[in-house]
């Protein structure tokens, strides 16, 4: 149709789509799903880090971690707001999450088991997220693109802090170094799975690329992450977590092994190490907080009514 052609022209010319612009239903649906999942990831992502806030080893580290988790909740807010510009309410998205009908990033279904994991989450997980988000700064939907720009700034700060934290572990006592190695070993493959299945197995990618909802392919982003991360692991003096990692002179990239994709699909299906606990925590937070939301709402209505009566 004419509308569709105009829409695609804008996209092709890098003109942002704004909330009031016409857009195909599928574009809207795909964006809502993607932004919603991204928002959910920020929210659920508080949990693995929150797991160590009460055990942070110094006041400084505790403050840094609190600030980071606070930022993540804030990112969740930006993204829910961006999704709301497409007519989908935060409450509805949260309901879908709690009913298991929307996902969040598979990485948060892995546990944080030692203090080095907190560094690794900042460095590897936020690092992987940034690779994806930097690309998404150029996404076609205006509010999403602008949210990404804000978020990326804070995320790179987190990634640097995370790297600094794991540096202290890797350069610390043998016990600390062992924890850093364990963190990298456990989180490497889950981190490179964050970019999603291989391009060959990735459904709907072509349309998303054409609409610039996706800007680079999963495999491109994964390669970029591997290339930037391997030298960092080496700098830390840690063993590489994958025997298949090797510089490929010809490609100008690192080769690396495929993760165990059956594990990835298991996690997506809800069978990851922490899926059940993470969702239970979020649902409990929501259900236990119902009286709070109701109470504050009732008070606001009373105040509004009193104001009207006074006028």
């Amino acid at each position, binding site marked *: 149709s004419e509308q569709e052609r105009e829409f695609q022209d804008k996209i092709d010319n890098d003109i942002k789509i704004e909330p009031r612009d016409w857009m195909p239903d599928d574009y809207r649906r795909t964006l809502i799903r993607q932004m919603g999942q991204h928002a959910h990831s920020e*929210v*659920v992502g*508080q*949990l693995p*880090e*929150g797991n160590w*806030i*009460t*055990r*942070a*080893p*110094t*006041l*400084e*580290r*505790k*403050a840094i971690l*609190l*600030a980071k*988790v*606070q930022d993540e*909740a*804030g990112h*969740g*807010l930006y993204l*829910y707001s961006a999704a709301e510009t497409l007519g989908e309410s*935060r409450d509805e998205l949260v309901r879908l999450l709690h009913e298991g009908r929307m996902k969040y990033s598979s990485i948060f279904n892995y546990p944080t088991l030692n*203090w080095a994991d907190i560094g690794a989450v900042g460095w590897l997980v936020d690092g992987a997220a940034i690779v994806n988000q930097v690309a998404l700064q150029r996404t076609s939907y205006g509010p999403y693109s602008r949210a990404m720009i804000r978020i990326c700034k804070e995320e790179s700060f987190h990634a640097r802090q995370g790297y600094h*934290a794991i540096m*202290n572990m890797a350069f*610390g*006592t043998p*016990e*600390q170094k062992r924890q850093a190695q364990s963190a990298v070993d456990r989180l490497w493959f889950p981190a490179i799975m964050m970019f999603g299945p291989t391009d060959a197995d990735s459904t709907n990618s072509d349309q998303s690329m054409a609409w610039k909802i996706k800007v680079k392919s999963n495999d491109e982003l994964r390669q970029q992450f591997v290339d930037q991360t391997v030298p960092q692991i080496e700098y830390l003096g840690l063993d590489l977590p994958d025997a298949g990692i090797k510089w490929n002179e010809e490609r100008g990239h690192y080769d690396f092994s495929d993760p165990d994709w059956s594990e990835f699909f298991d996690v997506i299906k809800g069978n990851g190490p922490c899926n059940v606990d993470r969702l239970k*925590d*979020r649902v*409990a*937070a*929501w259900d*236990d*907080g*119902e*009286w*709070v*939301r*109701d*109470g*504050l*709402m*009732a*008070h*606001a209505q*009373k105040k509004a009514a009193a104001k009207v009566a006074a006028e």
Partner: protein
Amino acid sequence: MSVDKQHLLQFLLRQGDNTLVLGHRVSEWCGHSPILEEDIALANTALDLIGQTQMWLGYAAEVQGEGKSADDLAFLRDAWDFRNVLLTELPNGDFGRTLLRQFLFDAFQSVLMGRLMQSSDETVAAIAAKASKEVAYHVERSADTVVGLGDGTEESHRRMQEALEYLWPYVGEMFASDETDAAMAAAGIAPDPASLREEYDALISKVLTDATLDIPAATYAHKGGRTGYMHTEHLGHLLTSMQWLQRAYPGCEW
């Protein structure tokens, strides 16, 4: 160390342990709040409290003069050496109780920090000046929430009244006075806590009235935190988490 220094150290530990322990409690909420905005607000409150802890315990360590750091004081003392008031170590309970505890403490801090800004000890005055800005924001926020929940639904009102009954016996300890307080007052470093009660009562009465909550009649006050003589059983459990890494891996850089 002169007697005055011992008293000053006690005074500083009381300040720093209050913010440390309450900051820890608040941080336990991370990711579990009733609504995303509250996750942000509670993390922010905890962050401010930990920041104040760094200042108070940093100065305490300096006054102590044994080469220790704020971290040493936070992570390597056992329960009986903590000097926080019992109120700050009580379990979070539900969100309402957490916010009410916060308000009862914020109100105290807002009165105290105002006075400490005039302290004859320049470092104390400087810390108080920085903290007072944060405290002003905290007390406004916690007061609003207490009013909103107290004067909300029947259920939220009931829960807040129950929280007040539970917390009220822990309010009095903030105004207890001993020889340390007398020494601080004599030196112009800090006011006698008892002298803050009137202003405090005026402040909380207004808010609790707006919240339609009844201040319990009982005058019994639990004590033993700010002297360290008898904390609650809760503090020991809190420390097992808080101090775990420093205890398990002593002497590391983090």
